[in-house]
């Protein structure tokens, strides 16, 4: 019952600081904060916005608990927690991929079509047989990686803005889907379907565990590998990164490939639930805009260079809880969109201003800093 409540405030800390396991909690010793800053120069500032995101999440949860209670239901009941975590899984994986792409200053609008394509390839390859699972999963991920590669090359080598590159690739894939697949196709292997229903104690779905693992992995990549640091550097300012000796093409391509692979895994999760490949399943979920919204809700700068997977997870959770409580309250479906729109703007407004003003100057603080000027600069996408 209280599992999520207890975990919610804790989550921002635990996976983020694997090197300093003794520093959880909101009031962190200065020592560990300094150490973290040494590990990654931008860490300290992220604490503020990430903590705020989870404060917003806690607020949303509290309101939801009350509203669910008014409806005569229990927010922390087993079925409800399961529903929320399940709802988080698919969007979460996509949003993690989107985080990578946005961090590096690009964007991925091809997400819905890659999701659909991966369910179709996987289901078509499995044909309902367990023996086909490894090959089908492998093929799915390879195809997704190739699509990501194509977008990455377009963005980095051909200088096409991520918006257009991914929109274009998405359109190409959508045409392929509409031409070659009419309706549902193939069948998921029984094992995969079992995975879609399995979980721990009927509270935590396997899909959610997969999401946590993916989040942990990507966080590690971002924080502790050269690739991760380069992603931040390029997203912050591609020209400066290049002049500083970073090969800009490879990280951009890697981000897109990783994003597409994560999206394909999300597709596999969807397949484990629906049992058949579907050419429209990705568009149905509006995953392109929702994932971007979740990423920004999670405190990642749309222009790139700043953000975290932990924040994104918070953003995804806010969406999931919101949708859950509106479902329980039987809100008019049209009004749901109204509330979603309002919450997105208000939630981001809560911390957008503050985290931006606290942003330290990029090079040692010698440059004269006007708060207004810095705030303005964050609004600007560093275009290709």
């Amino acid at each position, binding site marked *: 019952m209280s599992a999520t409540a207890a975990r919610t405030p804790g989550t921002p800390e635990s996976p983020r600081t694997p090197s300093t396991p003794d520093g959880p909690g909101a009031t962190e010793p200065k020592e560990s904060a300094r150490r973290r800053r040494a590990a990654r120069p931008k860490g300290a500032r992220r604490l503020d916005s990430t903590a705020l995101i989870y404060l917003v999440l806690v607020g949303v949860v509290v309101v939801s608990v009350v509203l669910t209670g008014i409806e005569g239901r229990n927010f922390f009941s087993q079925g409800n927690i399961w529903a929320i975590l399940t709802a988080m899984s698919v969007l979460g994986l996509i949003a993690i991929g989107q985080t990578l792409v946005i961090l590096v200053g690009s964007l991925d609008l091809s997400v819905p079509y890659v999701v659909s394509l991966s369910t179709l390839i996987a289901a078509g390859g499995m044909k309902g047989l367990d023996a086909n699972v490894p090959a089908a999963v492998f093929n799915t991920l390879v195809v997704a990686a190739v699509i990501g590669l194509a977008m990455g090359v*377009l963005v*980095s080598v*051909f*200088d*096409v*803005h991520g*918006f*257009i*590159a991914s*929109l*274009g*690739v998405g*359109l*190409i*894939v*959508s*045409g392929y889907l*509409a*031409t070659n697949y009419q309706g549902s196709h193939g069948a998921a292997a029984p094992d995969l379907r079992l995975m879609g229903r399995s979980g721990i104690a009927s509270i935590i779905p396997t899909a959610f565990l997969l999401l946590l693992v993916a989040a942990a992995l990507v966080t590690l990549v971002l924080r502790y590998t050269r690739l991760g640091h380069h992603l931040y550097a390029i997203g912050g300012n*591609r*020209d400066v*990164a*290049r*002049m500083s000796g*970073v*090969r*800009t093409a490879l990280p951009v391509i890697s981000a897109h490939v990783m994003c597409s692979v994560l999206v394909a895994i999300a597709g596999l999760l969807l397949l484990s639930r629906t049992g058949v490949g579907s050419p429209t399943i990705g568009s149905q979920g509006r995953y392109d*805009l929702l994932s*971007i*919204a979740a990423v*920004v*809700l999670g405190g990642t*700068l749309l*222009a790139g260079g700043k953000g975290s997977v932990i924040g994104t997870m918070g953003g995804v959770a806010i969406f999931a809880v919101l949708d859950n409580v509106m479902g329980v309250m039987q809100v*008019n479906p*049209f*009004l*749901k*969109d*109204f509330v*979603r*729109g*309002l919450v*997105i*703007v208000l939630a*981001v*407004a809560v911390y*957008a201003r503050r985290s931006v003003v606290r942003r330290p100057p990029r090079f040692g603080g010698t440059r004269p800093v*006007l708060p207004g*000027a810095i*705030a*303005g*600069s*964050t*609004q*600007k*996408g*560093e*275009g*290709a």
Partner: protein
Amino acid sequence: MSTATSSPTTRPLPLTEGSFLQRVVRGAVTPGGAVFILLAVLFVAVVAVNPSFGEPPQLIRFIGRTAPIVIAAMGQYYVIVSGEFDLSMGAVIATQVVIAGNYIGEDESRVLPAIGLMLLIGVVVGLVNGLGTTLLKVPSFIVTLGTMLALGGLVRFLTGGAATGNPVDTFREIGRGGIQDVPVLEVLPYSVIILVAVAAGSVWLMRSPFGRTLIAAGDNPDAATLAGAHVWWIKTRAFILSSLSATVAGILLVGYAGVHPSVGAGYEFQAITAVVLGGVVLGGGRGWVLSAAAGALALELLFSFLNFQEVESTWRNSVQGLIIILAVAVAARAWSLGRRPSSRPAPPAPPSTPARPGTETGDN
């Protein structure tokens, strides 16, 4: 505000020196110019497939029906050139369409008040978007996504999903009718007149201090602020202009297509695509307003070309995607001419020595 822009660089940019012809040729190699070449190529291709398309009456009808998206693209241009996005366009159009259907209805006397109301709503939405972006510091992608969801949801909630019916015909004439018996053209649609007026207004606006400051704010908001520009108000005005353009597009669309909940759906992406196709840089600071308009026209020509070519309906998206990517990739190559002249210490490189693609540097 005009003092902020009254300190031009002493060295002219490459695009502003030389004879007119030289400038045109140089301009054509920039993305903003290349779109006109693309437009010409597509036009020739369409006429080759379907010769009757080139006849003035058909052509003017085509321009008339593309007026809404062209106007929307020009509205989107203001926002993009200032470094922001406006995703709320489709929802604004849908709202205006519903107002037209439900408020005007069959009552002719309400046409003028309705237009006033629609423009007012356009201003309010733009103001909300602009202030949310500039004062609340929420990224415009999110603010306008929020307005898109909120506005769309609210309108459908209030109307039960669909408007009552089409508004009175006199109102629809704006988007559907035209001046009859014009020589050569047969008919001159009102939408074309509105389009020309909007385009002329846009060109004038972008040459005014506001336009210059807008581009400056999009190129480098820090510098613009330090130079004394009120960036927040400049950007807010860009959002208002965008919403107003969407409103005008909505009025034309009600006339052209009638009232339906899906009118305006996807317009924001169409408009952004058109603007980018027109060589305007996402992130702000670069691009010409008429290139954005040309981008929208090119996109519409492309759709018509696909229709005339009888490309299998399911493949059309793919062809569209391919062409967008190609056009922008080619344009990005062409950027080497006018790319970021301000960031270079030396005078801008002459066109004969294009900057090397970014991937070749950065060897460590």
